[in-house]
């Protein structure tokens, strides 16, 4: 703690230090470090089976870590049982109590805490209003739609005013419309309650639209932590670049400060000699018909448009270079697609800082 104060940093609300989890011989989570600051909305993003739920269950106290320690608000909670932790969880699959009404479900935690009837009544009404379920207070759980159940699960955790709210893919079962509506609600609730949310998802769009802090995981490891836009623009690994959005992967070799890409272009880039991998986001690629080219060669590639998809909010173009290298280009505005059609020869290039070098997979 003293170190952090000397360094002038805010002490994180949640800190995981070298936390790992093994199930017998299998490792669900390799040792990871993670810090979550108060008031942040952290999304944990990764493919199925990468250890997201394991991580959340470790924080909530349902599983004990094999190594490492967990601190919440400066207090070591590694061996603390879930009922004593200042966290609440919205479970994947909700886990609502089927023998209770909506209001009884939402009031369960306060009933357990032996709060007065009037306080429970008040706070249940208040929280149901927050998730817009006031009219359904007396309904049995079975008589709710999936989206309504999800909001009951959210209300049941929110009413406890946890220091940290843990959400395990709470929107996964919903259709797109409902999911987007719930994302908006979640953002609003996060702001209104001024809470700290840790949200697990395998949907990158969801992670980007909600979070101000993104944790990308793969195979039990954290690949990258950062602000969503930073992770998107500067992916650290090939996995992150591929998992987060569309990407072009350009391979090449570096010899004494000059990189030559297999697809052609050469440019200066400091670093150790040997094989290198760069990623290039499709929307940072510039494209124009080849006849417009100045006669001098540019730092790009010439090729032929293979495919052109209009996406409604833009166009996705596949360009094939002579040696068979393919490049995906995204244009935000369909008007720029005019004059571009399959079979047309084009030149593509990019700004120097559009290329991001990534570590080997």
């Amino acid at each position, binding site marked *: 703690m003293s170190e952090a104060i000397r360094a002038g940093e805010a002490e994180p609300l949640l800190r995981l230090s070298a936390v790992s989890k093994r199930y017998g011989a299998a490792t669900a989570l390799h040792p990871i470090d993670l810090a979550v600051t108060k008031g942040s909305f952290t999304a944990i993003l990764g493919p199925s089976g990468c250890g997201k739920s394991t991580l959340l269950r470790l924080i909530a106290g349902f599983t004990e870590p094999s190594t490492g320690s967990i601190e919440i608000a400066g207090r070591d909670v590694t061996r603390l049982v879930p009922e004593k932790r200042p966290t*609440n969880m919205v479970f994947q*699959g*909700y*886990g609502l109590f*089927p023998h209770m009404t909506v209001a009884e479900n939402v009031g369960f935690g306060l009933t357990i805490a032996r709060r007065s009837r009037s306080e429970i009544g008040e706070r249940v009404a208040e929280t149901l209003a927050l998730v817009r379920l006031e009219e359904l207070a007396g309904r049995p759980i079975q008589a709710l739609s999936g989206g309504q159940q999800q909001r009951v699960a959210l209300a049941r955790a929110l009413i406890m005013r946890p220091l940290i709210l843990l959400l395990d893919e709470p929107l996964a079962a919903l259709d797109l419309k409902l999911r987007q509506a719930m994302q908006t609600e979640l953002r609003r609730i996060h702001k209104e309650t001024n809470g700290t949310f840790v949200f697990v998802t395998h949907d990158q769009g969801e992670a980007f639209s909600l979070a101000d802090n993104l944790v990308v995981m793969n195979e039990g490891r954290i690949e990258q932590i950062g602000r969503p836009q930073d992770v998107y623009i500067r992916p650290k690994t090939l996995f992150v670049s591929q998992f987060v959005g569309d990407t072009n992967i350009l391979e090449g070799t570096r010899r004494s400060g000059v990189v030559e890409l297999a697809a052609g272009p050469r440019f200066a880039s400091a670093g150790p000699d040997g094989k290198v991998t760069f990623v290039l986001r499709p929307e940072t690629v510039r494209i124009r018909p080849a006849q417009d080219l100045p006669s001098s060669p540019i730092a790009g590639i010439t090729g032929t448009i293979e495919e052109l998809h209009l996406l409604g909010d833009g166009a996705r173009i596949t360009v094939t270079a002579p040696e068979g290298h393919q490049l995906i280009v995204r244009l935000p505005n369909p008007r720029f697609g005019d004059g571009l059609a399959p079979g047309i020869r084009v030149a593509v290039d990019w700004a120097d800082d559009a290329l991001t070098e990534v570590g080997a997979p």
Partner: protein
Amino acid sequence: MTAPAVKRIAALAPAYGILAGLFLVPIALLFAVSFWSVRSFKLEPGFSLDAYIRTFTVYGSLFVWTLLMAAAVAILCVVIGFIFAYGARFRVGTHGDLFILATMITLFGGYLVKIYSWKAILSSNGILNSLLLGLGLVDQPVGWFIFNRGAVIVALAHFLLPFAILPIYSALRNVPDITLDAARDLGASPWAVLVKVVLPQCRTGLVAAFAICFLSAVGDYVTPMFLGGGSAIMLGQFIVSEFSTRFNWPSGAAMSFSLMGASALVIGAVWLAFIGRRR
């Protein structure tokens, strides 16, 4: 009535026919007999309530005792059965089903074998007394282990336990683990999770187990015959003798129907108390 409805009823007819032939008809006949009378070992049709009056005047306290003993057996089975089923469902992990299968295997021994085993354990020269004597805890065989209501209750509960475990286990299997996690997450102690989340979710199983054990115990007459001592202590023993040695069918039938009615009331009350009022 619509045509499909008629068809559906017609499809069910054979099943209900068998049920009526094998179950309802004999019961109805016996019910009629309970209002008849007997004169010099001969049944005389008629309508008289004498048999019922006799049931409650002669056997009144025994009637109550029988209900109490059956209730004790049923409660014992539900409590122990719940502990067992809970362990199989939440503690044994994936092998819970095998565990339950193992309890079914104990039924292969049969009913009389279990009674004789209890006799061998509880009698004055039985295993329990030999053990106590051998350890020097007593210097004379203890006589009150056997031939009383306690011994009958223990033996009946032992025999009926698997029938209680089954419905409770199947009810517990329908309780999602995640509801237990959610309750703990919301601050519930393990005890509160049990009382507020697990028990309410499996209460139909508990009531079913109670009903099965209660009904099986209330009509039993073999266990009290072997372990209950010289004088009969359960109504079933008298029902048997009314039908066989005394040839007083109206009395036996009236006792049976009184016991049935009382059992229905008990189970109805239990059902109302634990299930009926909710939802």
